[in-house]
């Protein structure tokens, strides 16, 4: 019997340490700066255990029942801790208060466990024997937890499931104790009932934690998240640290500190070369930043923006921080926003435009790769007049040289002339574009004044390619070969 209780010491010790590790890992996950997080969590946790030990002296009656209740409580609170913290992370104003409340409560309860258990066991062993046994096993349990947690539990079960699993262990210890000491307990049925209730809850949590995780995937961002929403098409996250950053499906789209470089380079080399541009088409670019640049041309009468995701265009039309970044461009009377799939929309649209901007995400998968195929560019060609210019972002000619030139070669293969250029965007690195047209493109000389990056001098430099980014031969990207996605995967695979 007492052997069994000693085994429960091992389990309790393992569980206690695991909750601490979960809190530490979770804090460094969500808040960053793992040294600080771990250090403070460990400190607060140990301190709380001290509180528990102190409080234990006030437990005088029903020692065993109290111990069992503590087990159930630790199991419940420890078990759900990771899940609750993950789920509430995006919804509470001060996450730290919530986090440390959990740490204090769990720590206090865990601090109660050993003193109570030692008092239960005090008549079964000699004092020195008891101290030696309990602490030996306690520390072995701690070693056990600290090795298994990073190697087995965190990688294979994840934090949420690990929490539930150890919650289940704690509650099981409680239930087991009930079984062993049935005779010594008054009202064991009530206790047993609540224990089983908690156990069922934890088992369900364990089984369905994947589904819950789906709602709580808040990882990998450096700066605090100020906006996080999943549309049917993508996960949109905006973070704000020193700068404002937009992530789509975890990929950085722009940083407010240098996006002007990217967008000025995307728009002005082409648009400034067109005499009296009136009708403009923008594909992608739901952030309204390319539109902001286009609106600098007074002659422009109408901008049609086709972006798949209504959520993107909505937040960039309504959110103050974002509309100040795009200078309220999407609210301009000249702009019509169409939330449709560009490929399908283009198939039914035969209108001609003076200038076309393509600002799609990089061809990182087969669905996006379709937007860079001969089939797609042929459709676009039908929307171009003799003098229409098309500007397209084409990933990095430095990191993904073949991918970049593959876009150009694909456009060229359907009978358009291409004029490649590139620029340096600090948060992205070296970035590339093409201007494509049916006729010759001549560098404009009347660049808008007051641009932050593009002027006549930078413009000329953009069109010169150093040897390490110079043209390479590639295949042409088609629907039935999707060669661009393969280039892209290989090249960016090496970078990341």
């Amino acid at each position, binding site marked *: 019997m007492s052997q069994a209780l000693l085994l429960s010491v091992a389990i309790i010790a393992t569980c206690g340490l695991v909750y601490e590790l979960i809190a530490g890992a979770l804090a460094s996950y969500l808040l960053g700066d793992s040294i600080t997080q771990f250090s403070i969590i460990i400190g607060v946790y140990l301190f709380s255990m001290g509180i528990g030990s102190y409080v234990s002296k006030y437990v005088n009656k029903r020692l065993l029942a109290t111990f069992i209740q503590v087990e159930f409580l630790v199991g419940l609170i420890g078990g759900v801790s990771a899940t609750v913290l993950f789920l509430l992370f995006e919804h509470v104003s001060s996450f730290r208060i919530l986090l440390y409340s959990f740490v204090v409560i769990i720590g206090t309860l865990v601090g109660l466990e050993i003193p109570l258990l030692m008092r239960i066991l005090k008549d079964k062993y000699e004092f020195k024997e008891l101290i030696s046994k309990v602490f030996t096993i306690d520390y072995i349990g701690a070693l056990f937890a600290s090795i298994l947690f990073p190697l087995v539990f965190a990688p294979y079960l994840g934090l949420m499931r690990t929490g539930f699993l150890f919650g289940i262990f704690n509650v099981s210890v409680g239930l087991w104790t009930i079984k062993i000491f049935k005779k010594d307990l008054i009202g064991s049925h009530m206790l047993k009932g609540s224990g089983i209730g908690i156990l069922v809850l934890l088992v369900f949590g364990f*089984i369905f934690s994947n589904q819950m995780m789906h709602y709580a995937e808040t990882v990998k961002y450096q700066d605090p998240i100020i906006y996080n929403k999943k549309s049917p098409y993508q996960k949109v996250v905006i973070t704000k640290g020193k700068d404002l950053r937009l992530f789509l499906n975890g990929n950085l789209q722009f940083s407010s500190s240098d996006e002007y470089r990217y967008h000025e380079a995307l728009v002005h080399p082409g648009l400034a070369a067109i005499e009296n541009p009136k009708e403009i088409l923008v594909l992608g670019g739901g952030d309204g930043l390319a539109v902001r640049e286009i609106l600098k041309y007074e002659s422009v009468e109408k901008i049609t923006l086709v972006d798949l995701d209504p959520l993107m265009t909505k937040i960039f039309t309504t959110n103050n921080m974002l509309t100040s970044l795009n200078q309220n461009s999407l609210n301009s009377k000249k702009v019509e926003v169409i939330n449709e799939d560009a490929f*399908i929309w283009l198939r039914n649209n035969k209108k001609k435009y003076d200038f076309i901007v393509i600002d799609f995400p990089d061809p990182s998968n087969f669905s996006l790769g379709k937007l860079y195929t001969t089939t797609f560019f042929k459709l676009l060609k039908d929307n171009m007049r003799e003098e229409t210019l098309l500007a397209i972002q084409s990933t990095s000619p430095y990191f993904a040289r073949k991918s970049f030139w593959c876009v150009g070669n694909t456009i060229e293969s359907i009978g358009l002339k291409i004029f490649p250029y590139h620029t340096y965007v600090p948060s992205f690195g070296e970035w590339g574009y093409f201007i494509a047209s049916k006729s010759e493109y001549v560098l404009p000389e009347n660049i808008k004044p007051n641009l932050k990056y593009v002027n006549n001098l930078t413009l000329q430099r953009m069109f010169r390619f150093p040897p390490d980014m110079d043209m390479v031969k590639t295949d042409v990207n*088609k629907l039935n070969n999707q060669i661009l996605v393969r280039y892209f995967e290989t090249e960016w695979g090496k970078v990341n």
Partner: protein
Amino acid sequence: MISLASLGVVGISGIKFLKTTFSSKRIPGRMIGASFDRGHLLIKNNFEKPTREIEISTVIVGGGISGLSAAYTFTQNNFFDYILLELEDKVGGNSSSAENKITPFPLGAHYIPLLSEESKLAKKLFEELGIIEGHDKHDLPIYNEYYVCSDPHERLLIHGRWQNGLIPEEGIPETDKKEIKEFLDKVSELKNLKGKDNKRAFAIPMEESSTDSKFKKLDDISMKTYLKQNDFNSKYLEWYINYCCRDDFGMTIENISAWAGIHYFAARNGKGSEISTTDIITWPEGNGWIVNKLYSKIKKNCLNGKIVFNIENMNEDGKDFTYVDYYDVKSKAVTRIKTRKIIYAAPRFTAFRTIKSWRVNRPSWANKLEYSPWMVANISLSNKPVSSEIPLSWDNVNFDGRSLGYVVATHQNLKSKQEKSVLTLYWPLTDRDSRQARTKALGKSHQQWTSEIIKELDAMHPEIESLITNIDVCLWGHAMIKPNVGFIWGNERENMNKHFNNIYFAHSDMSGFSIFEEAHYRGVKASEKVLKELNNG
């Protein structure tokens, strides 16, 4: 301590068990496919006497690809005095398709390889339907790029990993790889091989193949024997060939004629402008796309839901004509058509129930006809299954699977984001005794099929069950004629292809295997013959 560690392990392995126990919801869906109840009415054949009689020059029985092609040929020749009678509520036969909120999807045949040089009739159709848009400077056909299967094409799960393409490579011993290459080289040589008659050894349509006896004799042995005779022993090669035979013929290499088996590899020499010979033509709804196109051009002459149960050749006052009696499933009325010519484009085994004199005296070739049953399931998903390093392809196959794997119906659509999808799982029931397989398949409930389907998919994607929102199970009792040893070049097939008085036949079973070009060829040929006969008198 150890007990704790083992508890952890038990916990991990228990997840799956608990998950299946707790989340076993009943998956909705329907049983669809060939209407057995309608077909089986023919077996009893105790219909009422006709209550009205009409006269039409020609009747086409059956609205699969061959019947539709016959009708379309009539229409193209400005001949409209015909009617097509289809047993089902919709035409299409094996090439039928359906649609749900997510996408159109195939219920059967779902792609066509690039057309071989002999497939001239099919080529003409492709040009008329816009599948071929013109020719380039080398005179190669330009296939409409929206219909060419998008990349990535195919992947195979083998030895626990996905690989590109269906020919086993991942973790295959070098000797097997060598043998696979030898086989493929050999059959690719056969592509250009010609007989004494200067025809290619293997062609599509198969009637264009050389009748040189040195090729025809391959029909006398099974594919398995052929492989053995030629010293091909690799089990991976055997798997691949067997896979191809199950896919195109619904048969395994043990029983299939070696001529048919090799035909699969050696007949196709199609080329296209700027596409590879291995490219294929497909649509979200599979060959249902062609069915819908053809139907839109002939629907005025088409009646669905009509069971033809009696065909009687008559001779009165020295005049030849034929009665065709049909039962209207909806109104339950029986109508008699007095007609001059008939194109019988239903599968031939039904003719022993409908053609009066064959009901009494079965022709000698009757017992040579054998058809393989298929199950085709359409599985709607709330999300596509998670991809490994090899992405979700158009065709996805498991080396250890019992089915042929699944095709993704949304593969050809151009949306840059589509989470929901429909997978079409193909499952030929290749038991040696097709009749038993058929009975077994029809005896299973939707739930029984569903659990087999999930098991099959689960082996490829452990998370699949939670993604499934619906499963439609489509059973084809007589999906494909089986090219058993001796059937292709035997007398029986030759005899069954002759017309019977006013009745002309059109169906892929006359070719010995069920592919689009054969069905189309038979349909066009029959209607050309009928037109000629009608013009002559």
